[in-house]
């Protein structure tokens, strides 16, 4: 395993500033083609797309019937009526299903790149690893958003879920959801970057997803939890990713509280953005490339020199 020096922020193979030309700009735009990779790998096996669809339909139907049954003996609980709770729960199901695409089968998870040593290529491309990660995440999000939009329209037109209480509430929910997705991007990035220290982060990813689903309200609407739990959750960045937009959507939270929620989300995004920049810098400076061999192999992989 040989020691290689890589530029953490630009990629070692990337031309440095004085050499940049018009062609770089074109190359930079071309980099966005990487956003298609997840979609292409998904459609490479149609069975996978069909199974995603089938699984979602079954899960949505079971969720719908469960909430209808829960409200069979009562009209309202925790300030939510049957229609509001069902709408919230179903939108939560779509959110979990389409928030992230499982790249495991395509061997394109950060941990897989780390274990197979292919993480080195991220630093050899003419696009910085940080940008490459962002481009791929945008591709995943776009793909998930398309599915989410289809599921939403189908459920809305069939009357399974309710429309937003008002146009303002709908727009407010959409804005909150957009900021929530940015928050989620940074959170997931930090979890993935942990690989640079731990090499393996499978359990960390799963734990994060569970905790995130519970604290965001994807499993049960947060209105059903005790007040102390909701108060504690308000201090964390998760609630803004789902509970706040959905509460605005169903009318459980008045639209005039929208500005406050937006401020909290913006604050969290700023904190996470700064943190992720710092962590990227540290992570790139210590990337471990597993695989290969040379005379200086110490059995633990090679580490890049910090170029600073």
């Amino acid at each position: 395993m040989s020691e290689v020096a890589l530029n953490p922020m630009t990629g070692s193979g990337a031309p440095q500033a004085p050499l940049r030309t018009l062609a770089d700009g074109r190359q930079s735009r071309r980099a966005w083609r990487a956003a298609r990779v997840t979609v292409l790998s998904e459609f490479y096996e149609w069975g996978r797309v069909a199974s995603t669809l089938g699984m979602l339909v079954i899960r949505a139907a079971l969720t719908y019937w469960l909430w209808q049954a829960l409200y069979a003996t009562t009209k309202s609980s925790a300030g939510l009526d049957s229609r509001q709770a069902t709408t919230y729960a179903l939108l939560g199901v779509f959110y979990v299903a389409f928030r992230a695409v499982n790249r495991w089968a395509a061997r394109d998870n950060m941990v897989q790149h780390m274990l197979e040593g292919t993480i080195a290529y991220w630093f050899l491309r003419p696009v910085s690893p940080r940008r490459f990660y962002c481009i791929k995440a945008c591709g995943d999000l776009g793909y998930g958003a398309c599915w989410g939009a289809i599921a939403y329209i189908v459920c809305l037109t069939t009357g399974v879920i309710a429309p937003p209480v008002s146009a303002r509430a709908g727009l407010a929910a959409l804005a909150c959801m957009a900021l929530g997705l940015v928050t989620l991007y940074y959170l997931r990035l930090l979890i993935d970057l942990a690989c640079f220290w731990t090499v393996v982060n499978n359990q960390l990813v799963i734990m994060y997803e569970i905790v995130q689903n519970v604290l965001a309200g994807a499993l049960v609407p947060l209105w059903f939890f005790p007040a102390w739990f909701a108060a504690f959750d308000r201090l964390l960045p998760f609630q803004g990713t789902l509970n706040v937009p959905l509460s605005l959507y169903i009318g459980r939270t008045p639209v005039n509280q929208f500005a406050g929620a937006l401020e909290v989300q913006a604050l969290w995004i700023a904190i996470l953005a700064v943190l992720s920049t710092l962590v990227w810098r540290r992570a790139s400076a210590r990337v471990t490339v597993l695989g290969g061999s040379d005379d200086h192999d110490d059995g633990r992989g090679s580490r890049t020199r910090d170029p600073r």
Partner: protein
Amino acid sequence: MTTTMDAGRARGIRADLDRKPGLREQAALYYRISRLNLKAQTAYHGEFVLGLLFGLVWQGSMVLFAGVLLLRFPGLGGWKQGDVLLIASMRLVSHSLYVACFSNIAMLSMTVQEGRMDGFLLRPMPVYRQVLLSRFQVNSFGDLLAGAGIFVLALFRLDLGWTPLKAVYVVCGILGGTLVEAGVQTLLAIGALRFTGLFTWTSWVDQTISTFGNYPLNVLPSPAKDALTFVFPVAFIAYLPAAIVTGHTATTGLPLWLTAAAPLLGLGFFLLAKAVWYRSLRLYQSVGG
């Protein structure tokens, strides 16, 4: 001379391989393999600790889901809160046993993708057993802890007039539930012998059982209930055995004998699934070409 010696040694090795190991030898082998797998897991300390916690957090979130709903709503489908808690706790304990003993079959698509399956086909041990022993599931400790905790809590909250027969039936119900879950994942794993990317399905099955296996299924419309009984047998994991113990057999819509035979059917289903899996091994396609 050399040829004769080689032939003799080969015969000896073959005879050694053909000899069926005794129960004690098998147990010693399982112990050694599991110990080595556990040692391998400890290579990544942080991952190991998180693995221990994972089962607890995952099952805890499912209990939270069920608990919050049960506290907010008076009951479900004619079942009282305590009765529903019994379904959830039986499901949790059977799931924890499944994770400890059988969950590696659900990861077969990964095993195949990593090219490890080829080795299993060459070694002198049943392939299915090798798959089950291929990894040590650290999270089974957390699962078992969460399951046992909730089960004890449910027992305290329920006043069912326990008799030895009821207690034995609950144990059989839990074991039957374990085998049903193992059977479902075994049947699904047949697909993994041929296609990559099946892990999405296995994790979906796991999630669906974890979420909807905790409730009385009589709340669902008839076609959905039938599908979760006869097509995807979630009902046999905890709902039907709990119906016998709590006396809700009328709500199942099934003959009493069929409801009561749930643990036995679980065993039959698993054996059938395993037999079908072995027959399907001929479909196996190595990813290495």
